[in-house]
Protein backbone atom coordinates (compact mmCIF):
# COMPACT_ATOMS: atom_id res chain seq x y z
CA UNK A 1 0.00 0.00 0.00
CA UNK A 2 1.34 3.43 -0.92
CA UNK A 3 0.94 6.08 1.74
CA UNK A 4 0.56 9.81 1.20
CA UNK A 5 0.99 12.37 3.94
CA UNK A 6 -2.10 14.59 4.01
CA UNK A 7 -1.29 17.98 5.60
CA UNK A 8 -4.72 17.94 7.27
CA UNK A 9 -5.36 14.24 8.05
CA UNK A 10 -1.91 12.71 8.36
CA UNK A 11 -0.70 9.57 6.58
CA UNK A 12 -3.42 7.88 4.50
CA UNK A 13 -3.70 5.23 1.78
CA UNK A 14 -2.99 6.73 -1.67
CA UNK A 15 -6.39 5.44 -2.85
CA UNK A 16 -8.05 8.13 -0.69
CA UNK A 17 -6.50 10.88 -2.82
CA UNK A 18 -7.43 12.34 -6.18
CA UNK A 19 -4.88 13.86 -8.53
CA UNK A 20 -5.81 17.36 -9.64
CA UNK A 21 -3.18 18.46 -12.16
CA UNK A 22 0.01 20.47 -11.90
CA UNK A 23 0.32 23.76 -10.05
CA UNK A 24 0.81 26.41 -12.72
CA UNK A 25 0.16 30.16 -12.63
CA UNK A 26 -3.12 30.89 -14.43
CA UNK A 27 -2.93 33.57 -17.10
CA UNK A 28 -5.68 36.21 -16.98
CA UNK A 29 -8.43 34.62 -19.13
CA UNK A 30 -9.65 38.05 -20.26
CA UNK A 31 -6.27 39.39 -21.31
CA UNK A 32 -4.26 36.42 -22.58
CA UNK A 33 -4.14 35.08 -26.14
CA UNK A 34 -5.79 31.79 -27.17
CA UNK A 35 -2.33 30.31 -27.44
CA UNK A 36 -1.42 31.27 -23.88
CA UNK A 37 -4.67 29.80 -22.62
CA UNK A 38 -4.09 26.59 -24.63
CA UNK A 39 -0.63 26.38 -23.17
CA UNK A 40 -2.04 26.70 -19.65
CA UNK A 41 -4.74 24.10 -20.29
CA UNK A 42 -2.90 21.47 -22.36
CA UNK A 43 0.82 21.79 -21.74
CA UNK A 44 2.18 20.36 -18.52
CA UNK A 45 5.77 20.27 -17.38
CA UNK A 46 6.29 16.73 -18.59
CA UNK A 47 10.07 16.47 -18.15
CA UNK A 48 11.20 13.63 -15.91
CA UNK A 49 11.85 15.06 -12.44
CA UNK A 50 10.13 16.63 -9.49
CA UNK A 51 6.69 18.08 -10.19
CA UNK A 52 4.41 20.23 -8.07
CA UNK A 53 0.82 19.03 -8.11
CA UNK A 54 -2.67 19.59 -6.74
CA UNK A 55 -4.12 16.68 -4.79
CA UNK A 56 -7.37 16.26 -2.93
CA UNK A 57 -8.06 14.10 0.08
CA UNK A 58 -11.44 12.90 -1.19
CA UNK A 59 -13.18 11.92 2.10
CA UNK A 60 -12.52 15.39 3.57
CA UNK A 61 -12.60 17.39 0.28
CA UNK A 62 -9.35 19.05 1.29
CA UNK A 63 -7.06 20.34 -1.49
CA UNK A 64 -3.32 20.61 -0.94
CA UNK A 65 -0.04 20.63 -2.83
CA UNK A 66 2.43 17.76 -3.22
CA UNK A 67 5.95 17.67 -4.60
CA UNK A 68 6.51 14.30 -6.23
CA UNK A 69 9.12 12.69 -8.46
CA UNK A 70 7.26 11.57 -11.59
CA UNK A 71 9.53 8.58 -12.28
CA UNK A 72 10.36 7.16 -8.84
CA UNK A 73 6.90 8.14 -7.49
CA UNK A 74 8.54 9.36 -4.27
CA UNK A 75 6.39 11.98 -2.57
CA UNK A 76 8.90 14.47 -1.20
CA UNK A 77 6.67 17.02 0.51
CA UNK A 78 2.98 17.86 0.95
CA UNK A 79 1.70 21.18 2.26
CA UNK A 80 -1.29 23.47 2.57
CA UNK A 81 -1.87 25.73 -0.48
CA UNK A 82 -1.63 28.66 1.92
CA UNK A 83 2.14 28.36 1.54
CA UNK A 84 1.88 29.45 -2.11
CA UNK A 85 -1.38 31.37 -2.32
CA UNK A 86 -2.05 34.28 -0.01
CA UNK A 87 -5.40 35.18 -1.60
CA UNK A 88 -8.22 33.53 -3.45
CA UNK A 89 -7.76 33.17 -7.24
CA UNK A 90 -11.05 33.99 -8.93
CA UNK A 91 -11.95 32.87 -12.41
CA UNK A 92 -14.01 35.18 -14.60
CA UNK A 93 -14.49 35.02 -18.34
CA UNK A 94 -16.01 38.49 -18.44
CA UNK A 95 -19.12 37.15 -20.17
CA UNK A 96 -21.49 37.77 -17.25
CA UNK A 97 -20.32 41.25 -16.51
CA UNK A 98 -22.59 44.19 -17.31
Amino acid sequence: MKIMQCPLNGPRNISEFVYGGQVEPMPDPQQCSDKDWASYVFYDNNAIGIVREWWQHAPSSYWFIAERHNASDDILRTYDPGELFSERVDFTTGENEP
Partner: protein
Amino acid sequence: MPLGLLKYGRGSDYPFERQPDLPGPRELKKHYDVVIIGGGGHGVATAYYLAKYHGITNVAVLEKAYLGGGNTARNTAVIRSNYLTPEGVRFYSASVKLYENLANEFDFNIMYSQRGQLTLAHTDATVRAFRQRAEVNKHFGGRTEMIDRQSIAELVPCLNLDPAQLPVLAGLWHQDGATARHDAVAWGYARGATQRGVELHQLTEVTGIESAAGQVTGVVTNRGKIACGTVIQAVAGHSAVMSQKAGFPLPIVAYPLQAMVTLPVKPFLNPLVSSSALHCYVQQTSRGEIVIGGGSDPYPLYNSRASLPLKESLIASAVDMFPFLSEMRLLRQWAGITDMTADYSPIMGLSPLKNYYLDAGWGTWGFKATPICGKTMAELVASGGEVPTLIQPFTLERFDHFQQVNEMGATAASH
Protein backbone atom coordinates in the same frame (compact mmCIF):
# COMPACT_ATOMS: atom_id res chain seq x y z
CA MET B 1 0.07 -32.53 -52.18
CA PRO B 2 3.00 -30.45 -53.45
CA LEU B 3 5.96 -32.63 -54.33
CA GLY B 4 8.25 -30.49 -52.17
CA LEU B 5 6.21 -31.30 -49.08
CA LEU B 6 6.37 -35.01 -49.83
CA LYS B 7 10.13 -34.85 -50.25
CA TYR B 8 10.41 -32.89 -46.99
CA GLY B 9 8.45 -35.56 -45.20
CA ARG B 10 10.88 -38.24 -46.37
CA GLY B 11 14.11 -36.30 -45.93
CA SER B 12 15.93 -35.39 -42.76
CA ASP B 13 16.94 -31.86 -43.85
CA TYR B 14 15.07 -28.63 -43.21
CA PRO B 15 13.86 -27.64 -46.70
CA PHE B 16 14.36 -23.88 -46.49
CA GLU B 17 17.53 -21.90 -46.19
CA ARG B 18 18.04 -20.91 -42.60
CA GLN B 19 18.32 -17.20 -43.00
CA PRO B 20 17.87 -15.11 -39.90
CA ASP B 21 14.83 -12.82 -40.02
CA LEU B 22 16.93 -9.78 -39.21
CA PRO B 23 20.52 -8.92 -40.17
CA GLY B 24 23.08 -8.72 -37.34
CA PRO B 25 24.39 -5.53 -35.75
CA ARG B 26 26.62 -3.22 -37.80
CA GLU B 27 28.40 0.15 -37.62
CA LEU B 28 26.38 3.36 -37.87
CA LYS B 29 26.89 5.36 -41.05
CA LYS B 30 27.79 9.05 -40.88
CA HIS B 31 24.65 10.09 -42.72
CA TYR B 32 21.15 8.82 -43.44
CA ASP B 33 18.41 10.40 -45.52
CA VAL B 34 15.88 9.48 -42.84
CA VAL B 35 16.38 8.71 -39.16
CA ILE B 36 13.47 7.15 -37.27
CA ILE B 37 13.75 7.37 -33.48
CA GLY B 38 12.06 4.38 -31.82
CA GLY B 39 12.01 0.78 -33.02
CA GLY B 40 8.47 -0.03 -31.99
CA GLY B 41 5.79 -1.09 -34.44
CA HIS B 42 5.25 2.49 -35.63
CA GLY B 43 8.94 3.13 -36.33
CA VAL B 44 9.57 -0.05 -38.31
CA ALA B 45 6.24 0.25 -40.16
CA THR B 46 7.23 3.73 -41.33
CA ALA B 47 10.60 2.40 -42.49
CA TYR B 48 8.90 -0.49 -44.30
CA TYR B 49 6.51 1.72 -46.29
CA LEU B 50 9.28 4.23 -47.06
CA ALA B 51 11.30 1.43 -48.63
CA LYS B 52 8.42 -0.41 -50.23
CA TYR B 53 6.35 2.40 -51.76
CA HIS B 54 8.79 5.28 -52.06
CA GLY B 55 12.13 3.59 -52.75
CA ILE B 56 13.68 5.47 -49.80
CA THR B 57 16.11 2.99 -48.24
CA ASN B 58 18.95 5.06 -46.78
CA VAL B 59 17.01 4.89 -43.52
CA ALA B 60 18.09 4.10 -39.96
CA VAL B 61 15.67 3.03 -37.25
CA LEU B 62 17.31 3.76 -33.87
CA GLU B 63 16.02 1.79 -30.91
CA LYS B 64 17.42 2.33 -27.42
CA ALA B 65 16.56 -1.20 -26.24
CA TYR B 66 15.34 -3.99 -28.52
CA LEU B 67 12.90 -4.23 -31.44
CA GLY B 68 9.27 -3.90 -30.33
CA GLY B 69 10.07 -4.06 -26.61
CA GLY B 70 8.15 -0.90 -25.69
CA ASN B 71 4.38 -0.57 -25.77
CA THR B 72 4.34 -2.74 -28.89
CA ALA B 73 5.18 -5.67 -26.62
CA ARG B 74 2.88 -4.61 -23.80
CA ASN B 75 -0.46 -3.93 -25.44
CA THR B 76 -3.51 -6.16 -25.37
CA ALA B 77 -3.60 -6.20 -29.18
CA VAL B 78 -7.16 -4.97 -29.72
CA ILE B 79 -7.72 -3.86 -33.32
CA ARG B 80 -10.97 -2.05 -34.04
CA SER B 81 -12.42 1.00 -35.79
CA ASN B 82 -15.64 1.69 -33.86
CA TYR B 83 -14.61 5.16 -32.73
CA LEU B 84 -16.86 8.22 -32.38
CA THR B 85 -15.60 11.03 -34.62
CA PRO B 86 -15.62 10.82 -38.44
CA GLU B 87 -11.90 11.74 -38.40
CA GLY B 88 -11.09 8.90 -36.02
CA VAL B 89 -13.29 6.28 -37.68
CA ARG B 90 -11.94 7.05 -41.16
CA PHE B 91 -8.36 6.75 -39.92
CA TYR B 92 -8.71 3.56 -37.85
CA SER B 93 -10.84 1.88 -40.55
CA ALA B 94 -7.99 2.36 -42.99
CA SER B 95 -5.71 0.62 -40.50
CA VAL B 96 -8.08 -2.33 -40.06
CA LYS B 97 -8.13 -2.76 -43.87
CA LEU B 98 -4.33 -2.90 -43.97
CA TYR B 99 -4.22 -5.39 -41.09
CA GLU B 100 -6.58 -7.76 -42.89
CA ASN B 101 -4.01 -8.38 -45.61
CA LEU B 102 -0.81 -7.94 -43.61
CA ALA B 103 0.13 -11.60 -43.08
CA ASN B 104 -0.13 -12.23 -46.83
CA GLU B 105 1.84 -9.12 -47.63
CA PHE B 106 4.64 -10.08 -45.21
CA ASP B 107 4.49 -13.80 -45.96
CA PHE B 108 4.77 -13.94 -42.17
CA ASN B 109 2.00 -15.08 -39.86
CA ILE B 110 0.82 -12.22 -37.65
CA MET B 111 -1.99 -14.40 -36.24
CA TYR B 112 -4.65 -11.89 -37.21
CA SER B 113 -7.87 -13.11 -35.71
CA GLN B 114 -11.11 -11.28 -36.47
CA ARG B 115 -13.35 -12.41 -33.64
CA GLY B 116 -15.49 -9.37 -33.12
CA GLN B 117 -15.57 -6.97 -30.20
CA LEU B 118 -18.53 -6.47 -27.90
CA THR B 119 -18.81 -3.36 -25.69
CA LEU B 120 -21.50 -3.39 -23.02
CA ALA B 121 -23.72 -0.41 -22.18
CA HIS B 122 -25.08 -0.17 -18.65
CA THR B 123 -26.75 3.27 -18.82
CA ASP B 124 -29.13 5.07 -21.19
CA ALA B 125 -26.50 7.70 -21.94
CA THR B 126 -24.08 5.01 -23.09
CA VAL B 127 -26.75 3.40 -25.26
CA ARG B 128 -27.23 6.74 -27.01
CA ALA B 129 -23.49 7.20 -27.50
CA PHE B 130 -23.23 3.64 -28.90
CA ARG B 131 -26.01 4.35 -31.43
CA GLN B 132 -24.03 7.28 -32.71
CA ARG B 133 -20.84 5.20 -32.92
CA ALA B 134 -22.66 2.43 -34.80
CA GLU B 135 -23.98 4.92 -37.37
CA VAL B 136 -20.66 6.73 -37.88
CA ASN B 137 -18.84 3.41 -38.20
CA LYS B 138 -21.33 2.04 -40.74
CA HIS B 139 -21.07 5.24 -42.73
CA PHE B 140 -17.35 4.63 -43.18
CA GLY B 141 -17.78 0.98 -44.13
CA GLY B 142 -17.24 -0.67 -40.73
CA ARG B 143 -19.38 -3.54 -39.47
CA THR B 144 -20.90 -2.26 -36.23
CA GLU B 145 -24.42 -2.60 -34.84
CA MET B 146 -26.42 -2.32 -31.63
CA ILE B 147 -27.55 -5.61 -30.13
CA ASP B 148 -29.95 -6.39 -27.26
CA ARG B 149 -29.55 -8.48 -24.10
CA GLN B 150 -30.80 -11.64 -25.71
CA SER B 151 -28.34 -11.44 -28.59
CA ILE B 152 -25.56 -10.71 -26.09
CA ALA B 153 -26.51 -13.81 -24.11
CA GLU B 154 -26.37 -15.88 -27.31
CA LEU B 155 -23.04 -14.41 -28.35
CA VAL B 156 -21.35 -14.81 -24.94
CA PRO B 157 -23.32 -17.40 -22.95
CA CYS B 158 -20.95 -17.30 -19.98
CA LEU B 159 -21.26 -13.54 -19.46
CA ASN B 160 -23.04 -12.27 -16.32
CA LEU B 161 -25.63 -9.82 -17.66
CA ASP B 162 -26.15 -8.15 -14.29
CA PRO B 163 -22.67 -7.39 -12.98
CA ALA B 164 -22.19 -5.20 -9.91
CA GLN B 165 -25.82 -3.99 -9.82
CA LEU B 166 -25.29 -2.52 -13.29
CA PRO B 167 -27.59 -4.50 -15.61
CA VAL B 168 -26.41 -4.68 -19.22
CA LEU B 169 -28.89 -2.71 -21.34
CA ALA B 170 -27.43 -3.23 -24.80
CA GLY B 171 -24.19 -3.87 -26.62
CA LEU B 172 -22.13 -2.36 -29.41
CA TRP B 173 -21.19 -5.33 -31.58
CA HIS B 174 -18.23 -4.63 -33.83
CA GLN B 175 -17.69 -7.57 -36.17
CA ASP B 176 -14.42 -6.15 -37.48
CA GLY B 177 -12.88 -6.25 -33.99
CA ALA B 178 -9.72 -8.38 -34.00
CA THR B 179 -6.42 -9.19 -32.37
CA ALA B 180 -2.99 -9.93 -33.82
CA ARG B 181 0.28 -11.17 -32.44
CA HIS B 182 2.01 -7.86 -31.58
CA ASP B 183 5.58 -9.18 -31.74
CA ALA B 184 4.89 -10.68 -35.15
CA VAL B 185 3.61 -7.32 -36.42
CA ALA B 186 6.86 -5.62 -35.35
CA TRP B 187 9.00 -8.44 -36.74
CA GLY B 188 7.10 -8.60 -40.01
CA TYR B 189 7.62 -4.89 -40.61
CA ALA B 190 11.25 -5.01 -39.47
CA ARG B 191 12.05 -7.97 -41.70
CA GLY B 192 10.35 -6.38 -44.71
CA ALA B 193 12.18 -3.10 -44.10
CA THR B 194 15.66 -4.56 -43.55
CA GLN B 195 15.29 -6.86 -46.57
CA ARG B 196 14.81 -3.69 -48.62
CA GLY B 197 17.95 -2.06 -47.23
CA VAL B 198 16.75 -0.21 -44.12
CA GLU B 199 19.10 -0.45 -41.12
CA LEU B 200 17.68 -1.30 -37.71
CA HIS B 201 20.06 -0.36 -34.89
CA GLN B 202 19.07 -1.78 -31.53
CA LEU B 203 20.76 -0.67 -28.27
CA THR B 204 21.11 2.75 -29.89
CA GLU B 205 19.67 5.57 -27.82
CA VAL B 206 19.10 9.07 -29.14
CA THR B 207 20.39 11.47 -26.48
CA GLY B 208 20.21 14.76 -28.36
CA ILE B 209 18.85 16.46 -31.46
CA GLU B 210 21.00 18.98 -33.32
CA SER B 211 19.32 21.77 -35.22
CA ALA B 212 20.13 25.07 -36.86
CA ALA B 213 17.82 27.74 -38.28
CA GLY B 214 14.64 25.84 -37.45
CA GLN B 215 15.84 22.66 -39.12
CA VAL B 216 17.25 19.41 -37.78
CA THR B 217 20.78 18.62 -38.92
CA GLY B 218 21.54 15.45 -36.98
CA VAL B 219 20.98 13.26 -33.97
CA VAL B 220 23.36 12.41 -31.13
CA THR B 221 23.37 8.81 -29.95
CA ASN B 222 25.24 6.70 -27.41
CA ARG B 223 27.17 5.38 -30.43
CA GLY B 224 28.10 8.73 -31.93
CA LYS B 225 26.61 11.47 -34.07
CA ILE B 226 24.63 10.98 -37.27
CA ALA B 227 23.78 13.62 -39.86
CA CYS B 228 20.39 13.24 -41.49
CA GLY B 229 17.87 14.73 -43.89
CA THR B 230 14.64 14.01 -42.05
CA VAL B 231 13.84 12.80 -38.53
CA ILE B 232 10.69 11.08 -37.27
CA GLN B 233 10.13 10.57 -33.59
CA ALA B 234 8.05 7.49 -32.74
CA VAL B 235 8.89 6.87 -29.09
CA ALA B 236 5.39 6.53 -27.56
CA GLY B 237 5.72 6.87 -23.74
CA HIS B 238 8.77 9.10 -24.02
CA SER B 239 7.32 11.41 -26.70
CA ALA B 240 7.39 14.52 -24.52
CA VAL B 241 10.93 13.80 -23.32
CA MET B 242 12.14 13.41 -26.91
CA SER B 243 10.44 16.57 -28.18
CA GLN B 244 12.17 18.52 -25.41
CA LYS B 245 15.50 17.32 -26.79
CA ALA B 246 14.36 18.79 -30.10
CA GLY B 247 13.52 22.03 -28.30
CA PHE B 248 9.73 22.17 -28.11
CA PRO B 249 7.04 20.89 -25.70
CA LEU B 250 4.17 18.50 -26.48
CA PRO B 251 0.71 18.47 -24.85
CA ILE B 252 1.27 14.92 -23.64
CA VAL B 253 1.21 13.42 -20.15
CA ALA B 254 2.70 9.99 -19.38
CA TYR B 255 0.41 7.58 -17.50
CA PRO B 256 1.08 3.91 -16.78
CA LEU B 257 -1.40 1.44 -18.23
CA GLN B 258 -1.54 -2.00 -16.65
CA ALA B 259 -2.77 -5.37 -17.87
CA MET B 260 -2.49 -9.02 -16.89
CA VAL B 261 -3.06 -12.57 -18.11
CA THR B 262 -4.14 -15.76 -16.35
CA LEU B 263 -2.87 -19.27 -16.85
CA PRO B 264 -4.24 -20.83 -20.05
CA VAL B 265 -7.51 -22.76 -20.09
CA LYS B 266 -9.60 -24.39 -22.83
CA PRO B 267 -11.21 -21.96 -25.28
CA PHE B 268 -14.55 -20.60 -24.04
CA LEU B 269 -14.56 -16.95 -25.10
CA ASN B 270 -14.44 -15.99 -28.75
CA PRO B 271 -15.33 -12.26 -28.94
CA LEU B 272 -13.43 -9.52 -27.10
CA VAL B 273 -15.73 -8.27 -24.33
CA SER B 274 -15.51 -4.85 -22.73
CA SER B 275 -17.68 -3.05 -20.19
CA SER B 276 -18.03 0.72 -20.45
CA ALA B 277 -19.14 1.12 -16.84
CA LEU B 278 -16.73 -1.28 -15.16
CA HIS B 279 -13.76 0.05 -17.16
CA CYS B 280 -12.60 -3.46 -17.82
CA TYR B 281 -12.19 -5.75 -20.81
CA VAL B 282 -11.65 -9.48 -21.01
CA GLN B 283 -10.48 -11.60 -23.92
CA GLN B 284 -9.00 -15.05 -24.47
CA THR B 285 -5.76 -15.39 -26.42
CA SER B 286 -5.09 -18.12 -28.96
CA ARG B 287 -2.96 -19.79 -26.27
CA GLY B 288 -5.97 -19.88 -23.93
CA GLU B 289 -4.86 -17.22 -21.46
CA ILE B 290 -7.44 -14.69 -20.29
CA VAL B 291 -6.24 -11.12 -20.84
CA ILE B 292 -7.64 -8.55 -18.43
CA GLY B 293 -7.20 -4.85 -19.11
CA GLY B 294 -8.88 -1.57 -18.26
CA GLY B 295 -8.39 2.10 -17.47
CA SER B 296 -5.13 3.94 -16.90
CA ASP B 297 -3.43 4.58 -13.56
CA PRO B 298 -5.00 7.42 -11.54
CA TYR B 299 -2.03 9.82 -11.79
CA PRO B 300 0.91 10.49 -14.16
CA LEU B 301 4.14 8.51 -13.85
CA TYR B 302 7.15 7.65 -16.03
CA ASN B 303 7.42 4.18 -14.57
CA SER B 304 6.22 0.80 -15.75
CA ARG B 305 5.73 -0.69 -12.29
CA ALA B 306 2.49 -2.56 -11.66
CA SER B 307 0.43 -1.78 -8.56
CA LEU B 308 -1.82 -3.72 -6.22
CA PRO B 309 -4.83 -1.33 -6.29
CA LEU B 310 -5.06 -1.55 -10.09
CA LYS B 311 -4.82 -5.33 -10.01
CA GLU B 312 -7.52 -5.54 -7.36
CA SER B 313 -9.94 -3.28 -9.19
CA LEU B 314 -9.38 -4.90 -12.60
CA ILE B 315 -9.79 -8.40 -11.23
CA ALA B 316 -12.91 -7.39 -9.28
CA SER B 317 -14.52 -6.08 -12.47
CA ALA B 318 -13.46 -9.10 -14.53
CA VAL B 319 -14.97 -11.42 -11.89
CA ASP B 320 -18.19 -9.37 -11.95
CA MET B 321 -18.43 -10.00 -15.69
CA PHE B 322 -17.33 -13.64 -15.62
CA PRO B 323 -17.81 -14.92 -12.03
CA PHE B 324 -16.02 -18.26 -12.66
CA LEU B 325 -12.78 -16.32 -13.33
CA SER B 326 -12.37 -16.15 -9.55
CA GLU B 327 -11.07 -19.72 -9.79
CA MET B 328 -8.24 -18.73 -12.15
CA ARG B 329 -4.57 -18.12 -11.38
CA LEU B 330 -2.72 -15.04 -12.62
CA LEU B 331 0.29 -15.75 -14.79
CA ARG B 332 1.76 -12.32 -15.51
CA GLN B 333 1.05 -8.65 -15.00
CA TRP B 334 2.81 -5.66 -16.45
CA ALA B 335 2.52 -1.99 -17.40
CA GLY B 336 3.56 0.32 -20.20
CA ILE B 337 4.12 4.08 -20.11
CA THR B 338 1.48 5.62 -22.34
CA ASP B 339 1.65 9.04 -24.00
CA MET B 340 -1.80 10.50 -23.27
CA THR B 341 -3.33 13.50 -25.02
CA ALA B 342 -6.26 15.50 -23.67
CA ASP B 343 -8.58 14.35 -26.49
CA TYR B 344 -7.46 10.71 -26.72
CA SER B 345 -6.35 11.23 -30.33
CA PRO B 346 -2.77 11.07 -31.63
CA ILE B 347 -0.43 13.89 -32.62
CA MET B 348 0.86 13.26 -36.12
CA GLY B 349 2.57 15.30 -38.78
CA LEU B 350 4.57 18.51 -38.70
CA SER B 351 6.43 19.99 -35.73
CA PRO B 352 7.93 23.43 -35.06
CA LEU B 353 11.14 22.13 -36.73
CA LYS B 354 10.97 21.97 -40.51
CA ASN B 355 12.22 18.42 -41.19
CA TYR B 356 11.25 16.84 -37.86
CA TYR B 357 7.99 14.89 -37.92
CA LEU B 358 5.82 13.62 -35.10
CA ASP B 359 4.23 10.25 -34.52
CA ALA B 360 3.16 10.64 -30.89
CA GLY B 361 0.27 10.74 -28.46
CA TRP B 362 -0.60 7.10 -28.98
CA GLY B 363 -1.63 6.57 -25.40
CA THR B 364 -3.57 3.38 -24.87
CA TRP B 365 -4.82 2.99 -28.45
CA GLY B 366 -1.89 2.99 -30.90
CA PHE B 367 -1.28 -0.68 -31.71
CA LYS B 368 -4.28 -0.86 -34.03
CA ALA B 369 -2.97 2.20 -35.87
CA THR B 370 0.47 0.74 -36.60
CA PRO B 371 -0.06 0.00 -40.33
CA ILE B 372 -1.84 3.23 -41.25
CA CYS B 373 0.64 5.30 -39.22
CA GLY B 374 3.56 3.75 -41.02
CA LYS B 375 1.90 4.31 -44.37
CA THR B 376 0.89 7.93 -43.82
CA MET B 377 4.14 8.91 -42.07
CA ALA B 378 6.06 7.46 -45.04
CA GLU B 379 3.92 9.56 -47.42
CA LEU B 380 4.65 12.63 -45.32
CA VAL B 381 8.40 12.03 -45.52
CA ALA B 382 8.43 11.12 -49.22
CA SER B 383 6.46 14.24 -50.18
CA GLY B 384 8.83 16.47 -48.23
CA GLY B 385 6.25 17.60 -45.70
CA GLU B 386 2.84 17.45 -47.39
CA VAL B 387 0.52 16.14 -44.70
CA PRO B 388 -1.77 13.31 -45.97
CA THR B 389 -5.48 14.20 -45.65
CA LEU B 390 -6.16 11.23 -43.39
CA ILE B 391 -3.89 12.58 -40.62
CA GLN B 392 -4.49 16.32 -41.01
CA PRO B 393 -7.02 16.40 -38.12
CA PHE B 394 -4.30 15.10 -35.78
CA THR B 395 -1.96 18.07 -36.18
CA LEU B 396 -0.17 19.39 -33.10
CA GLU B 397 -1.64 22.83 -33.80
CA ARG B 398 -5.18 21.68 -33.04
CA PHE B 399 -4.57 22.34 -29.35
CA ASP B 400 -3.75 26.00 -29.95
CA HIS B 401 -7.05 26.39 -31.82
CA PHE B 402 -9.17 24.26 -29.48
CA GLN B 403 -10.04 21.86 -32.31
CA GLN B 404 -9.59 18.60 -30.48
CA VAL B 405 -10.74 15.28 -31.94
CA ASN B 406 -12.48 13.90 -28.88
CA GLU B 407 -12.30 10.11 -28.67
CA MET B 408 -12.30 9.80 -24.89
CA GLY B 409 -15.64 7.99 -24.67
CA ALA B 410 -14.63 5.49 -27.34
CA THR B 411 -11.16 4.85 -25.87
CA ALA B 412 -11.02 5.07 -22.10
CA ALA B 413 -12.60 1.66 -21.30
CA SER B 414 -11.41 -0.44 -24.23
CA HIS B 415 -8.23 0.24 -26.13
